[in-house]
């Protein structure tokens, strides 16, 4: 029995109701992401902003190690060490924080308290080989 008292005994009604719920959720998520993006862009440096608009990611420098990390626009393991390609996953403990908010929190932590971030971060080996400087051809005989 539907909780609102309506009799949704027709597949069309049920699908239309699910469609409305999905659209409402999508609309809300779009608004949340737009607000998160506003906040992120407000606090990125001009270089990071340009990079983010071009690549959907930006580079930060760790406060302690001075290593470069690339923060990607992604849900999990989105912080990549630029040297070895190892990916890290750490995020604010609230559930339901949008990706741009997570990226801003990661930027703040890496740029001002890298140790604390790395203490909680989970790490994953690189998915692809890190870029190496060009070397001599292997078969130069």
């Amino acid at each position, binding site marked *: 029995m539907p909780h609102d008292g309506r009799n949704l005994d027709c597949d069309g009604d049920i699908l239309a109701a699910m469609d409305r719920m999905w659209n409402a959720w999508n609309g809300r998520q779009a608004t*949340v*992401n737009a607000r998160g993006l506003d906040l992120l862009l407000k606090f990125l*440096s001009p270089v990071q902003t340009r990079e983010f608009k071009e690549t959907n990611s930006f580079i930060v420098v760790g406060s302690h190690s001075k290593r470069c990390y690339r923060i990607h626009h992604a849900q999990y*393991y989105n912080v990549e060490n630029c040297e070895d390609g190892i990916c890290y*996953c750490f995020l*604010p403990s609230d559930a339901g924080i949008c990706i741009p*908010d997570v990226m801003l*929190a990661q930027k*703040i932590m890496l740029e001002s*308290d890298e140790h604390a971030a790395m203490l909680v971060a989970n790490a994953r080996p690189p998915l692809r080989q890190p870029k190496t400087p060009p070397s001599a051809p292997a078969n130069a005989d």
Partner: protein
Amino acid sequence: MRFYIMDQTGHSTVEFKKDDVDTAMKKFMELTQTEKKIAAVRTGEGQLRKTSAFDPSADEMVFFSPMRGG
């Protein structure tokens, strides 16, 4: 002074008048001590520094929950 607090809506903004430092400090304490949020103060263009002390001269601060591994 303006506080940006990350939440499920993207963020919430709380604004304080320049002469209302006491209210801003009270809110800062509530966020950092009661809610255990991390605070960061803007130190320049594209620059934020994590802080545990209230800075009455700050223009903008960002708050978010403690980090955990994902």
